[in-house]
């Protein structure tokens, strides 16, 4: 189990993590989801004791990471940035780590077989492809047969076969009762792997729920409406409880109202409709929608909260 309580961290005057609190339970894969720059890696570094939080604390199996003796036996971590000396062979890299935890050499051979790096185990890690590097990182994480796994973007650089492999591995590890905490910026990847999601944006928790709930909440139906009287129509729809997103001069995206009802309302008000098209947002689009307001970079059109309907339209940028 991982517990983060009120974690904050800033680098210079940039706030990377903003009073985060969440719990990662054992026995399931918990996805840690957020756009690039949302603070996922920083949060993981704080949990792993690599960086010191400005406020708050994190514990793993009840203890701060720095207080774990032989921590690799409790926590296995895969960091996003490479953590391997390029001049050392894969075998020796793992041996170096195994020796600090008093693990037998046999265990090094076991994890090399586990990740399928047998043929290159005696080659220098500097020559490894991104995918091989990820596998070596997984091997290092599994070295101490840990009850908790913290994996930062593990599918990065893996080929489709590798992605399937890591997915199954994570599910299996969770099924064995371990705590598996895995970050990703890809909603679709998490949808098929994680049972629980912690979603963050700009260093804050946006959602902390089961993946099922998240999908139901996020991928709700919307209706695309084109009308020469878009402004009037939007007011009418909002008054009926709809959430309306409008691109400048473009079509409206309407939530919380079904297409037939929108048509009826337009008819009642005598407004012309050019197009009325029910849509089902992709999971990825829903995720982007949810996290857009918290996006660090990128260009955005006006957004009206998908959870809290507002009357704003034709807006010109972020609130």
């Amino acid at each position: 189990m991982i517990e983060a309580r009120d974690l904050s961290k800033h680098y210079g005057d940039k706030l990377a993590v903003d009073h985060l609190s969440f719990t990662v339970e054992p026995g399931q894969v918990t996805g840690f989801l957020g756009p690039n720059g949302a603070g996922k890696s920083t949060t993981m570094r704080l949990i792993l004791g690599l960086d010191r939080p400005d406020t708050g604390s994190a514990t793993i199996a009840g203890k701060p990471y720095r207080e774990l003796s032989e921590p690799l036996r409790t926590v296995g971590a895969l960091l996003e940035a490479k953590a391997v000396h390029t001049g050392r062979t894969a075998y020796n890299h793992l041996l170096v780590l195994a020796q600090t935890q008093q693990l037998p050499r046999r265990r090094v051979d076991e994890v090399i077989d586990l990740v399928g790096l047998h043929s290159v185990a005696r080659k220098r890690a500097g020559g490894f492809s991104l995918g091989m590097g990820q596998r070596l990182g997984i091997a290092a994480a599994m070295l101490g047969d840990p009850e908790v796994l913290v994996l930062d973007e593990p599918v990065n650089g893996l080929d489709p076969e590798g992605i399937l492999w890591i997915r199954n591995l994570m599910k299996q590890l969770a099924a064995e009762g371990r705590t598996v905490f895995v970050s990703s910026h890809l909603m679709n990847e998490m949808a098929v792997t994680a049972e629980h999601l912690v979603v963050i944006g700009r260093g804050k928790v946006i959602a902390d729920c089961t993946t099922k709930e998240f999908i139901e909440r996020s991928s709700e139906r919307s209706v695309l409406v084109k009308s020469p009287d878009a402004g009037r129509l939007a007011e009418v729809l909002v008054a009926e409880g709809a959430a309306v997103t409008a691109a400048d001069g473009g079509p409206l995206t309407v939530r919380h109202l079904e297409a037939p009802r929108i048509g009826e309302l337009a008819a009642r008000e005598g407004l012309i409709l050019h197009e009325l098209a029910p849509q089902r947002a992709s999971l990825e689009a829903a995720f982007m929608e949810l996290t857009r307001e918290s996006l660090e970079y990128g260009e955005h059109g006006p957004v009206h909260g998908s959870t809290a309907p507002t009357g704003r339209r034709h807006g010109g940028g972020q609130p």
Partner: protein
Amino acid sequence: MTTAPATTHPGLATTTRARHPFGPLLSSEWTKIRSVRSTVWALVLLVVLTLGFTVLINGLTVAQWNKTDASQRADIQADPVWQILGAGFQLSQLTICVLGVMVITSEYSTGMIRASLLAVPTRIPMLAAKSVVFALLVFIVGEIAAFPSFFIGASILHKHAPVALSDPGVLRAVIGAGLYLAVLGLFALAIGALVRHTAGGITGVIGFVLVLAPLAQLLPGSLGRHVHAYLPSEAGHLIARAHRGPDDLLSPWQGFGVFCLWTALLLAAAMYLLVRRDA
């Protein structure tokens, strides 16, 4: 490829153990050093070059003996050990400076430091183990270079400046050459750990060892003499002299003590910052 973890008992391995026993960390740091090829080659090269330069410089000294002026001859005859060892060690100390810095900065440049600190989150034991292993290794390699250097050099100089291992201070000086290199290695390691950057670290150490000494000599009068004498490398290499020279402010052991103090302070600062800084 297999999807089955080798063992399937989560939490089984978390039985309480003694906190950070030091022995395993020594093995780990030893594996780190021996498993990077460039380090091994640098140390082999160090021995070869030290011996080579001992032969070359001492050979030249003997060949030029009749053209050398009397005061220089007297210097050599007063302390032949320094003449013999100094030749090779002027060179090998640079190798140790670079290696000492890189033993730690290469962890930062490759990202290995994160794996190291995840394994030893209290951090100081990791740096301590690295220091012990590296210093011991350099001491042993230093002696492997020093003793043959001494015997080869002594036989070359024999006719003009005879010296034997049993002469007063000579054995201590030869062992001292290895000691000097070992502490120099730690000195460089500490600066590398403070700077966390290979180029910056090497520049810093070389600055201390090669640039500061001649600069200090430019300072006027006794101030310059004192500053110069207490500089780390200047004080440190006195241990490789058979006896205290007429102009030396410090005895060999005092000088070595000063050098050790410098190194201890830098290592303490490095450890303090290692724990405080984000990795």
